[in-house]
């Protein structure tokens, strides 16, 4: 199932809605992300950005709509064993990076990275270790391979988390505010790794972030979220230089 050799999007979201009780967080989202594309999603907190990412890999069950990842189509409804398997396949194909890193604290950096391939894909440990070391080198942490997460800084932990997600060889990466929990001086190292994923590996990425500098440099497209809808989208040069929607303008004025 090669995602987009035929121009089909790697990720397609159609009419996606999500309610928590009476609160409707997503009110009909349509989004297509093509191979190698970097989409930055921004907007006020509570506008549904994170929820969208979490609905794409079904960490949250959407209320309505369609999610399609690499040709696998998911719709909300009862989780039969067949559907559970489809969800798992979608998750294998999407790497997720969390705001709070969520590294496994009882495993070293290297063990964190090879956990997915070994446990989920059944890769042999001997084969996984050199691959894991290579990934850690890619995020600049080869010398920390045998450290436990608690001995790593926030920036280092997040880079390990990126390597862990990459180890599954995903078709797309989902970044959920990857630098929001970091001290300011540690943000740069994480953004640098993400930038190299985009420019060197041409990784398909959806990034929820407030780092407008990163968006300007790396994103192909930016989507502004407001109250569960995408109210404006376009290339960063347009969105950042002269936003059309007044709500976008007001938000950008506040953060820039």
């Amino acid at each position, binding site marked *: 199932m090669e995602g987009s050799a035929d121009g089909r999007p790697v990720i397609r979201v159609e009419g996606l809605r999500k309610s928590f009780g009476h609160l409707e967080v997503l009110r009909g989202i349509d989004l297509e992300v093509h191979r190698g594309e970097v989409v930055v999603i921004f907007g006020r907190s509570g506008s549904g950005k994170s929820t969208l990412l979490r609905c794409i890999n079904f960490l949250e069950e959407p209320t309505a709509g369609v999610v399609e990842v690499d040709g696998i189509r998911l719709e909300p409804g009862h989780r039969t064993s067949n559907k559970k398997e489809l969800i798992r396949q979608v998750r294998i194909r999407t790497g997720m990076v969390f705001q709070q890193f969520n590294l*496994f604290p009882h495993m070293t950096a290297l063990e964190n990275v090879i956990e997915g391939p070994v446990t989920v894909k059944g890769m042999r440990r001997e084969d996984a270790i050199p691959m894991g070391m290579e990934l850690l080198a890619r995020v600049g942490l080869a010398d920390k391979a045998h450290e436990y997460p608690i001995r790593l800084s926030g920036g280092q932990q997040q880079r390990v988390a990126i390597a862990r*997600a990459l180890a599954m060889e995903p078709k797309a990466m989902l970044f959920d505010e990857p630098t929001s929990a970091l001290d300011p001086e540690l943000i740069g190292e994480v953004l640098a790794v993400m930038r190299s994923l985009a420019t060197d590996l041409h990784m398909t990425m959806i990034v929820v972030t407030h780092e407008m500098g990163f968006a300007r440099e790396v994103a192909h497209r930016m989507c502004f979220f407001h109250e569960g809808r995408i109210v404006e989208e376009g290339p960063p040069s347009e969105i950042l230089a002269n936003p059309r929607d007044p709500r976008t303008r007001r938000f950008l004025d506040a953060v820039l």
Partner: protein
Amino acid sequence: MRVNQGTGAGVARPPDLAQERPGLRERLELASLAVPFRVKLALVWLGIFVVLGLLFALAGFDTAWMREEWLFVLKGLPWTVIISAASIGLAIVLALFGALARLSRNPVAYGVSGFYVSFFRGTPLIVQLFLIYLGLPQIGANLERYVPGIHEALLLDPLTAGILGLGLNYGAYMTEIFRAGIQSIGHGQLEAAYALGMTYRQAMRRVILPQAVRVIIPPTGNEFIAMLKDSALVSLLGTVVSQMEIFRRAQLVGRADFRPFEAFILAAAVYWGLTTAFQFFQGRLERRLSKGYVREYGAERRPRFLPASAAGGIGPGALEVEVPTEAGPRQER
């Protein structure tokens, strides 16, 4: 002690201690400050044993008899350990499944584990032991015509019945311990495991349970120590002579020679030694499990109270906490 009285309107000035010759009491205090706390503690324990020893001597304690019979009591130790180890093994398995069932949305699993925990926590252990040992055969006899062979199967020997009873009872308590341990692991860990494509089973086995074990071990150790002691109850079912544990043996030999006090003191000493030894190993295990959770090994040390220096005496600053200096900012290598 002379107190310098102020000449003003009854304003008391602090006594001028520097000019006093230290009294006996004060010299003792100063000498005491020079002795480390641990040494004092050891002396207190020693004192307790000396007092108890004197008391026993006065009460005509038969030490010769004890020297003769202590091996007989000690021979029960393997059986106490076997009963406890088998029971804790059963309890751990039951607690694991019980806890997972308590956390599941399956109504059958949730309901059955709820019943199990409620019944076995809500009734006395001794009643459960008798239900299993004496009650089950009766059920078996009455069901024999429907299920041939069940009477035989439910006719348990005291040891098996004891292990089953202890395991079921402790498993119920430990279900709650395991459930709390699993719930103490943040939801982000489960999400991270799911995001990698793990199934529930894989996430539990690889991510959640290994972390929960760290939380579960200390209270499980406590349960095991309690079980070492509760294993004495199995004696009340009566045991085969060759399988008698500590308490049963003490009872037997004490009764035969009219030396109940000596016999049970022996039994108590063996139990005490056993639990103390186990606590020691538990401490080592907990330290091993802390890897990945302790950043600097120096920071593990608890802050200690500085002994008040003899010159300073008790005053402000005397109770300052020593902070290990190596627990400073993290070193980047």
